[in-house]
């Protein structure tokens, strides 16, 4: 009985201290796009490793469509959101004074997936192809326009099919010759279907990334202008916390995958896989203790995948593979740094698509590296 009383007292104290600690934190919503997915692993890592709470934030993640994320941040109904740079340029041209403060994706993720039998070493060979695209909007459409522009082609010289977000199925059915996809996701799905013999006569696919042609600004963290002026220190704390979570994810993807399991219901969580990932995460942590270079860490990620691939089939590892491919798009010497050239290239593409008016706006006001240097590694 005495033990029970003691236990109850300790429990009460713990709960009280936890409530107290929670009460000290600033409640913050971060608006994300899409749905809970391993591609948002840095946020899950931030929550699980406490990088947000360490700097005083109790973060809640919410998933919306990109324009909604941007509008809610623009009107101050949320302080932080993740959107692509092109959305920032478009929205600013329509009176939304948002500022991009951390470039999460260092490479534009859109790509063209095609059969390896199709030789696209010369981009002009895109002419006449039947290309699938989610729709004539968003990053996919900008990416396609960039590829066509690099090839000196126009949209009228290809056959464009709006296929929604069904590229793997439509591509494998042979309804299109190539499809605009996200480089870190659909190509893997198509390769898994190919390996399973469920993709027609297709033997392998190749991926032509937009980033290989032009450096376009991609997904990053946005805030609104008044918040930037009134609460720069709060933004610096948030950027710092996210940057740290991103670095942890890049350095130890096995650990990041394990952290994501609590947030992404559909992630494969086979017992053997969890055990293997836990061991891989521990090994990686020991490896990181020696302070390896960025290239060495990248090599260790490949070794990690090779080791896991020997134990598990492609389908089970697909989401881990998505995470590794995503990391390739995020990794950089200075995480979060945004380059004016990539903004100018993006603006030129949007202007080419007639999506901007005559006033192309001040790109310098669209983004800031102020917090990247404050929180630099």
């Amino acid at each position, binding site marked *: 009985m005495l033990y029970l009383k003691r236990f109850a007292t300790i429990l009460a104290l713990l709960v009280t201290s936890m409530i107290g600690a929670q009460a000290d934190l600033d409640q913050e919503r971060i608006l994300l796009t899409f749905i809970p997915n391993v591609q948002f692993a840095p946020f899950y890592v931030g929550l699980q490793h406490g990088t947000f709470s360490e700097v005083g934030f109790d973060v809640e993640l919410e998933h919306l469509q990109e324009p909604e994320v941007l*509008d809610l941040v*623009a009107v101050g109904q949320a302080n932080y959101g993740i959107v692509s740079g092109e959305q920032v340029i478009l929205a600013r041209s329509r009176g939304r004074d948002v500022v991009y403060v951390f470039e999460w994706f260092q490479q534009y993720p859109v790509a063209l997936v095609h059969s390896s039998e199709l030789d696209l070493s010369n981009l002009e060979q895109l002419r006449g192809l039947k290309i699938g695209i*989610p*729709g004539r909007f968003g990053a996919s459409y900008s990416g396609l326009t960039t590829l066509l522009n690099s090839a000196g082609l126009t949209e009228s010289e290809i056959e464009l099919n709006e296929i*929604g*977000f*069904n590229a793997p199925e439509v591509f494998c059915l042979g309804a299109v010759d190539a499809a605009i996809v996200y480089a870190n996701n659909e190509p893997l799905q198509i390769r898994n279907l190919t390996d399973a013999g469920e993709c027609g006569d297709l033997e392998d696919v190749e991926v032509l990334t937009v980033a290989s042609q032009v450096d376009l600004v991609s997904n990053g963290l946005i805030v609104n202008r008044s918040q930037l002026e009134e609460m720069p220190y709060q933004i610096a704390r948030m950027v710092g916390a996210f940057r740290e979570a991103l670095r942890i994810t890049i350095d130890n993807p096995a650990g990041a995958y394990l952290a994501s399991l609590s947030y992404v219901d559909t992630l494969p969580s086979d017992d053997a896989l969890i055990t293997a990932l836990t061991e891989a995460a521990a090994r990686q942590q020991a490896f990181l203790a020696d302070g390896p270079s960025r290239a060495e860490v990248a090599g260790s990620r490949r070794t990690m995948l090779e080791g896991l691939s020997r134990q598990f089939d492609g389908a089970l590892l697909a989401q881990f593979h998505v995470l590794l491919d995503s990391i390739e798009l995020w990794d950089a010497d200075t995480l979060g740094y945004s380059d004016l050239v990539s903004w100018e290239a993006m603006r030129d593409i949007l202007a080419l698509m007639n999506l901007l008016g005559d006033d192309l706006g001040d790109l310098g006001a669209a983004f800031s590296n102020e917090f990247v240097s404050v929180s630099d590694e």
Partner: protein
Amino acid sequence: MQTTTVSRDFQARQKRQILLRRLCPLLTILLLLLFWQWITDREIISPILVPSPADVFAAFASALADGSLARHTMTTLGEMMYGLLLGVGVGLALGYAIAKAPLLEYVLSPIIVAFQSTPIVAYAPLLIIWFGTGPSSKVVTTAVIVFFPALVNTIVGIRSVSPRLRDLMRSLNAGPGRTFRLLEFPSALPVILAGLKTSTTLAVIGAVVGEFVGSGSGLGVLVIMARSQYNTPLVVVTVLTMTVIALSLYSLVALLEWRFLVWQRRASA
């Protein structure tokens, strides 16, 4: 003389009441517009979230002038019409068959109810994969959504035919064809038309859901395009266009009802 004056007064009062009844919806809309303009003028809600009526009208004029609104509307209307023909056609035929053969209901109802109780948004991507990325998948999406009201109302309509009248038709040696033409169809028509009213309004949803999932043209695509370009006034214009289409089709069926159910009105009178 006094009777004539009273009668004239009564008629004038009736006319005023009819006029008032007709003006009421217009007045409501006008008040709503004024209220909308007022809240946007005072920026009670940010114009980013709710554009002003003036901005919406400007977007409407622009979309009308460049032909984009007409082009996308025609696409959606086409998908809706084919979808309605297919969905309502199958619904009527299957509904009649089920009403006449209850065994068929036991066999088919689990599939039909399961299909209907699943939100169409959930399986619309599959329809795109199965029926292609062209208009056929949107026609099927529309057909699936309009099918159920047509089916259910046909079953209810045919089953509600008075058994005494059926006996009467039998006593007159009327065959199935004559019974259908002279008794079942006219008796079931009010219920069938009520189902058609629901189907027509749902048709817009079906077509737009199909377009949202993957399409090159149509009002659903226009909403996505306008939204991705932060053109909120154009989003409002497109949504209002969908409303107008739904209301117009509903009114068309109501007109058919008024025209074909003249006997019912007379009977009520």
